[in-house]
């Protein structure tokens, strides 16, 4: 169990700055998920915490102790790799007990530890097998088993589920969550997968191009993304963006002109000058489509609700609902419609953007305004 403090950490490879002043403090027992596009430096950050990469500048502190210069083996952390990295010449039992054997644990303690871990992970029948004789899911479990027998200060996971098929991933995700509930060990988990991030995290750290864009609970990032990047990255299908311009603002409401002409009044103050550009965001699942929308034309109205007529471009049924691609003026947006969607391309529908679901971002810096 440990508290991990990352203080102004930077990383460069051959003068190329990969991580730019990362600050993050992780509380004991917390489950932190790092998300971000490929190449943004998630693995690099994790590997620096593990001691596999040198820290170019800044400090990594575990329980008040600066560990920058400590060898990986002295950090008492466990890591689960995307490739699993099982030792091919050792049995499952050998893989799981390796760290304990290195620490010269007594035979009976080792047997007890790997017995317990294999029982929890359902590996008991496989203990004498070599990794090559295991399925992908079983290898994944062994990798987890190898991490938990150590009872480390913290777990580091680098996309541990990305080599599994969708069904197995769902199952292992739940197991990881249960494992964390049972052990309560501080965890840092890197993933590309939205659902993994949302379901597992106590707090999500969204990264882009070597900087942290936002740190917050899954609900925070979903409900109040701090900037355009986070807004576009969290959520699937991604948030729709509409370009707009500030018309006027009173102390309680703002009037905007959308790029295609209609006006929209919202009960928020955005702190902008008239004429300044704004980007309005709305998640597909918050757009109300079809008969549910009030019959009105133009995105305007005294109540502050926006509704308008749109043309269906494409309908993608997902079973639970459908992703409706529709054209507003010339721009195509997506709505997620729960239930059956019997529209065809070319149909006219009404779309309604509830104002309380709108996000506003500055067009120049991308920062959240409301």
């Amino acid at each position, binding site marked *: 169990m440990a508290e991990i403090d990352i203080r102004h950490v930077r990383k460069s490879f051959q003068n190329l700055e990969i991580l730019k002043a990362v600050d993050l403090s992780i509380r004991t027992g917390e489950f932190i998920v790092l998300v971000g596009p490929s190449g943004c430096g998630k693995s690099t950050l994790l590997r620096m915490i593990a001691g596999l990469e040198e820290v170019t500048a800044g400090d990594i502190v575990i329980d008040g102790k600066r560990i920058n210069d400590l060898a*990986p083996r002295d950090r008492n952390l466990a*890591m689960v790799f995307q*490739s*699993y990295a099982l030792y091919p010449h050792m049995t499952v039992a050998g893989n799981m007990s390796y760290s304990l054997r*290195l620490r010269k644990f007594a035979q009976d303690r080792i047997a007890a530890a790997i017995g317990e871990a294999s029982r929890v992970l359902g590996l008991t029948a496989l203990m004498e097998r070599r990794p*090559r004789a295991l399925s992908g899911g079983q290898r994944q479990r062994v990798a987890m088993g190898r991490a938990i027998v150590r009872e480390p200060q913290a777990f580091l996971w680098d996309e541990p589920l990305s080599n599994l098929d969708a069904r197995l991933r769902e199952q292992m995700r739940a197991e990881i969550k249960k494992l964390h509930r049972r052990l309560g060990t501080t965890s840092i988990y890197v993933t590309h997968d939205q659902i993994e991030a949302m379901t597992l995290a106590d707090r999500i750290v969204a990264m882009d191009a070597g900087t942290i864009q936002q740190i917050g609970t899954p609900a925070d990032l979903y409900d109040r993304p701090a900037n355009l990047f986070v807004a576009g990255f969290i959520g699937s299908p991604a948030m729709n963006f509409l370009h707009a311009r500030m018309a006027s603002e009173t102390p309680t409401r703002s009037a905007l002109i959308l790029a295609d002409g209609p006006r929209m009044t919202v009960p928020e103050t955005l702190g902008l000058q008239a004429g300044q550009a704004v980007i309005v965001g709305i998640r597909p699942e918050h757009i109300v489509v079809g008969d549910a929308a009030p019959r009105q034309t133009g995105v305007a109205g005294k109540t502050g609700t926006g509704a308008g007529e749109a043309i269906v471009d494409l309908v993608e049924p997902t079973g639970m609902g459908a992703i409706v691609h529709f054209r507003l003026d010339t721009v195509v947006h997506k709505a997620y419609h729960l239930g059956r969607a019997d529209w065809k391309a070319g149909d006219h529908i009404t779309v309604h953007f509830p104002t309380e679901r709108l996000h506003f971002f500055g067009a120049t810096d991308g920062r959240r305004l409301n």
Partner: protein
Amino acid sequence: MAMSRKRILGTLAHRAAVLLYIVVALFPLYWLLKVSVTPTRLLYSEGVRMWPSKTTWAHYAFVLQNSDFPQFFENSLIVSLSTAAVVTLLAAAAGYAISRFEFRGKIWLIGFLLVTQMFPLVMLIAPIFKILSSIGLTNSLAGLILVYSAFNVPFAVFLMQSFFDAIPRDLEEAAMIDGASRFMAFRQIIVPLTLPGMAATLGFVFTAAWSELLFALMLISKSDISTFPVGLLSFVSKFGVDFGQMMAAGVLALVPAVLFFLLIQRFLVQGLMAGAVKG
């Protein structure tokens, strides 16, 4: 039907080609064996025959009892085994460093290793003889081991590097997180997985040293420290070549090489890597 007949013909042609290759490749070996058991009397009188009308072990007996060959074998074994061991150890260490570490001058080191492979050995004999004689290493097995090692190390380094490159870094990183030092991770995780590579290097260097003639001839002039390829030449005298004895010695010389490969083949064929990472 037409398809299957075509396939049968194809298979036959394939087998025939393989067989032809094997026959051609092994024929000299067969001839070696045949001549080694042919009585000298019949060697010239019978003309070219696939198998002599009478066979004898006399050449073998002579080579083992009356010649210096047992001594030559012993010398060759000492030189080849030592060279193989020295080169494999050095190449494993250097290959690992090149595969895993970034260090200043790495490009230059690799460049120099390559350059050493560019010169024909004949060019280097004179300078090497000069150098070795000035430090008293001519006419010594140690000198031969030194020269063979020096010439085999570069290629062996590249060979070993390619084996290390094939092993994912994740494995030793996992070991280091599990509590191993880098050296322990190397010894306990990487070395067991590169055994096939080490066996291949060992075998390659052993055979290279076992059959080397040029330096063995130039650096050593005393017969009691000659290696066996030099010894073979001793059958070539002013008055002719004693083919029977020479071939018998040749067959005997194959024995250690074959034994050595039998010993290491277990590692050569080991496919340990499967299952290291997701397969």
